[in-house]
């Protein structure tokens, strides 16, 4: 099946402009800041006077006015005005759960792409080594680092600390963290992943989800309760395995479907939570929308409309 489409029509620039005469800089004084919970701004809009306020991230000063340099929401802490950008790289915080991809193996450390401004660092000393949780790091471990993680591998980790230059340091010192397999990755804007109580969720269709705060989402086959970490059936040897388990067709179809739901929701800028995903999944099952039809515009729009109405 091959189908051609046209590019979406650009709004005619001549008409779409805001009325030129009614446009004056939005002067926000104290009341405005207090009243407006979240105000959206765009690059070049002057926010307030630079004499009364300090400029923060996402702003600059021109003609004694604080001007936004990015599109986003205005935030203010006392006299400091910042703009939080809508589309941005991931801003890490200590304790965040992230999904990353190894880009480089270096002496006693891995470099990890975590959708941040700089590559994150995973030290050999902050991973769980196979064969005993409390085992000491040996010299032989340094020589076989690629047996644990090699270039391209995906992993789930937690932000542990920051280095002096702002690089984040990750750790995987929990059996829940580590190498990822049995599934596929979906990338969405990081702002759409909210901070949740738990970023590991399970959908009843036999799917595990890891919502990385950096916008990388891992959709994989569900691991049975009895085989989860700390249980009887937990396979400690498989922690650094590159082999997938057997995945049956229905699970594969469900994984594709969930991945496409996430893509559709992200393209409509719907923040992602497990509840919304579950509702969306149920909707697709009710309406018999398979993974492929979700990519079409009508089905996607209908899905988002339903989810938005219920939320």
């Amino acid at each position, binding site marked *: 099946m091959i*189908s051609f489409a046209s*590019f979406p029509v650009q709004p005619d620039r001549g008409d779409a402009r805001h009325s030129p005469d009614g446009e004056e800089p939005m002067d926000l004084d104290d009341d405005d800041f207090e009243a407006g919970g979240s105000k959206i701004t765009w690059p070049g809009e002057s926010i307030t006077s630079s004499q009364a306020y300090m400029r923060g991230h996402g702003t600059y000063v021109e003609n004694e006015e604080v001007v936004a340099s990015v599109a986003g929401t205005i935030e203010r802490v006392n006299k400091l005005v910042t703009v939080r950008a809508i589309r941005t790289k991931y801003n890490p915080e200590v304790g965040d759960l992230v999904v990353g991809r190894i880009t480089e193996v270096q002496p006693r450390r891995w470099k990890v792409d975590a959708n941040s401004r700089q590559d994150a660092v995973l030290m050999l000393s902050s991973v769980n080594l196979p064969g005993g949780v409390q085992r000491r790091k040996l010299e032989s471990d340094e020589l076989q680092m690629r047996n644990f993680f090699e270039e391209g591998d995906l992993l789930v980790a937690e932000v542990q600390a920051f280095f002096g230059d702002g690089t984040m340091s990750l750790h995987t010192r929990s059996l829940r963290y580590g190498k990822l397999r049995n599934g*596929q990755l979906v990338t969405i804007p990081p702002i759409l992943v909210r901070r949740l109580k738990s970023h590991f969720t399970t959908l009843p269709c036999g799917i595990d989800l890891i919502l990385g705060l950096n916008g990388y989402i891992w959709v994989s086959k569900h691991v049975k309760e009895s085989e989860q970490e700390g249980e009887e059936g937990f396979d400690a040897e498989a922690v650094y395995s590159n*082999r*997938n388990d057997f*995945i049956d067709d229905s699970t594969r179809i469900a994984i594709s479907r969930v991945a496409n739901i996430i893509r559709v929701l992200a393209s409509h800028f719907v923040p992602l939570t497990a509840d919304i995903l579950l509702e969306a999944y149920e909707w697709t099952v009710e309406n018999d929308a398979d993974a*492929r039809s979700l*990519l079409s515009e009508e089905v996607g729009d209908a899905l988002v409309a339903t989810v938005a109405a219920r939320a």
Partner: protein
Amino acid sequence: MASVSTSKAEISYIQSGLLSNPPLRADGRALHDFRTISLETGVAPLANGSAHLNIGQNPHDGGGGTEVLAAAKLEVESVDGQGEGVDGGRIVCTVSCSPSAYPHLSAPALDDLQHDMSTLLHQTLAHPSLHPANLGILAGKKSWLLNLDCVVLADAGNTYDALFMAARAALWDCKVPRTRGVEYKAAVAPGAKVSESGEMDVDRDPGEQQSGFDTRSISRAVDFELPDYWDEGEVLGGRDKWPVCVTLNVASSKVHYLDAILQEEAATPLRLLLVFSFPTAASPSLQAMRILGSGELESGQIREFVADGEKYAQRLSDALNGKLKEEDLRRGQKARDRFARR
């Protein structure tokens, strides 16, 4: 290409999905489905023909997808034996890749990639069997040089198919300006009317002399002019012949699929590029064939793949022709509307 890093687990997930029965792809498409292709012609006002193509664009926010821009620009070139100009004109194709499409590639690697793509596109499109008839201006003196420049703005897999489709759309859209030969008239002609010797016959009283556009005197024409005419020129000759490319991603000897995304490309050991041309009322001709990747292919299999590829290429070509005609209509409509508004 395909060098976007992918873990072994992801690769084996994609491969086992493709090899399962029924085959399942990561985004739910069937094996021979294309993603949605967006196409627009006439995007570059200064080019003689141009096209903008995107495979797999997200319909909601317009992001993602393989994005290619192609523009054909005509240039006059002398045929004097010193330069590269040849009688009947020639075609030069260049592909450049935006570094933002391949952020992981170093500059030399990007150059290599561009060169590979340029070579394939140039060798295929500049082949004598596809050469358009109306690229000559004055035999032995001047001809058109058609520069076809393609830019890969973003790569989300299946770049070659996108390149060839964009190139075909740009060439389809290409208009060759009309030219008229200009010649010197001999000073003395027995019994002829008075004529000034050695002067060009431009801007003459039309009743007094012949038009310069006279095919019998073409050999005497020394230069040409561009007559002012209502349209931009005539379409490039043989525009039905421009080929389309299909990439067969060979997962196993039994299973092959079309329109791979980047991850699928990384998981596929062998890709077979087949370029087919479908001149009207004639059998399809295979214009080019390339094998990419480290996999192996037995010569016996090639015949099957070519036969399959021909079917896909036929469908792709039909769909593309339909869209190009639609675009022609749309642009005709737009031009008329703009004229009416004035």
